[in-house]
């Protein structure tokens, strides 16, 4: 089984400053990876390199064995809670349909299979009864689910999410992770996490972005690994099925 994502000697920087240096990671099919690291460490940048929105300064990324641009049809992307216009005139299904643009002809309207894919994606995220609702009128958690439906409508094999739970209530977050767990049965998932509060019982690997970028199986993520990543000023608190950090500052 070849890797879904393979980076070799990947380096990237904005201007002269190098942000990511010699990243060598490989993510196998079916994995559920959460990307963690301090603010400004390059988590989102790494995701954008996987998407081909940014070009590496040195080294390279391959997604499904080809360049990120060529792999885009097989990749679904859920952006960081987007800065959307609250009056924007679209319904939930309109947004889900936008995930079909890469798969339909250039001209004309949506076809029946586009509509079916969009509706079934909304169904999968539990929003089939809200398909006709004004997108802006949905709650934060529902909007985030619609954006996942948009990614799913294109029929991806790899799902990339950028801080999908930022700003969501804890109980909504819980349901959200259950949805991802369900999706992980057929998709490889890479999720940037806004803090170390990842849910460990179904996240299979942790990709730590710091001075160096390393993948650990979840079982290996110990206080030492995290202390090393965050510079030592971290205290771990173990919960029933999640672990989260406390006592370190984001800067």
């Amino acid at each position, binding site marked *: 089984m070849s890797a879904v994502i393979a980076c070799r000697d990947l380096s990237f920087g904005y201007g002269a400053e190098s942000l990511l240096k010699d990243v060598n990671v490989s993510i196998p099919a079916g994995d559920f990876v959460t990307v963690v690291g301090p603010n400004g460490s390059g988590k989102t940048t790494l995701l954008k390199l996987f*998407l081909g*929105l940014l070009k590496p300064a040195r080294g390279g990324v391959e997604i499904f064995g080809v360049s990120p641009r060529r792999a*885009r*049809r097989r*990749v679904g*992307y859920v*952006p960081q809670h*987007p800065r*959307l*216009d609250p*009056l*924007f*005139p*679209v*319904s939930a299904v*309109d*947004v889900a*349909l*936008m*995930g079909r*643009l*890469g798969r*339909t002809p*250039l*001209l*004309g*309207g*949506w076809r029946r299979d586009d509509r079916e894919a969009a509706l079934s994606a909304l169904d999968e995220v539990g929003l089939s009864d809200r398909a006709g609702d*004004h997108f802006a009128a949905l709650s934060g958690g529902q909007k985030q689910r619609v954006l996942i439906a*948009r990614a799913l409508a*294109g029929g991806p094999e790899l799902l990339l999410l950028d801080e999908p739970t930022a700003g969501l209530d804890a109980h909504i977050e819980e349901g959200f992770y259950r949805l991802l767990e369900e999706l992980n049965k057929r998709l490889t998932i890479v999720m940037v996490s806004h803090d170390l509060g990842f849910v460990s019982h179904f996240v299979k690997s942790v990709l730590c972005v710091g001075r160096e970028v390393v993948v650990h199986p979840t079982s290996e993520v110990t206080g030492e690994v995290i202390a090393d990543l965050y510079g030592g000023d971290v205290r771990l608190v173990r919960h029933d099925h999640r672990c989260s950090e406390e006592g370190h500052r984001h800067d």
Partner: protein
Amino acid sequence: MTELLTAFTEHRFLQYALLAGLLAAIPCGVVGSYVVIRRITYMAGGIAHSVLAGLGLVHYMQVVHGVTAVSPMVGAIVAALVAAAVIGWVGGSMGQRVDSVIGAVWAVGMALGVVFIALTPGYTTDLMSYLFGNILMVTARDLWLAGTLVLLVLVVTGLFHRQLLAVSFDAEYAELQGVPVGRFTALLLALTALTVVVLVSVVGIILVIALLTLPAATANLFARRLGGMMALAVGLCAALTVGGLALSYGPDLPAGAVTILLTGVVYFAAVLVRRRNV
């Protein structure tokens, strides 16, 4: 009112004016909606003002060199498209600040127009009608040209409505879907340019920005989907131009200005009615 109706049956220029207003309502609602959701009102403003350069040049050529083959509207189309291209190119590909480029196109276009008009001997009453519109001076040739532009705008937006919506909603995601975002932004600017030209004959260069965006912004307060927003905006635009024409005729006020006053009143009233608890 009966006086107006009698005048309407008697005077061809009033019939042309009505037709011009109704025709302009179509791209006004459709393209105006994109301008509003893509938030490019001030790009449209820059394009509108640069139209004076084209109008001035054609006017100059007609009076000074006797060239009558080109109608002022064609001059307006060329100027608007050039302005759209410059804004798209300098503000997009060349990476300059978009608002600086808009300001440059806006003022340079006006300045060129003023220079051409100054070089043209004779009365400068045309300047006022360019700036504030004179729907009562619409000719049959203008109507044909406007009709062609409206058809073109409708066909293009019909063919690419999904891409235009996606680029307006989330350009980064559209790019990931393989939509050439830069080209569709340019296309939207070109459509805006053509729409501006059609609207200039109704309300003039300075007021066009309000007619292009306020009916769409008003419609957006009531519509939840783009199609509904466009339909409502077209209806509003038609009602506003006809209303402006009717209200201005009796007291002999400028139709363009009355139309815009009406447009502004409707917009602010709608905002108050649909006020949200933020």
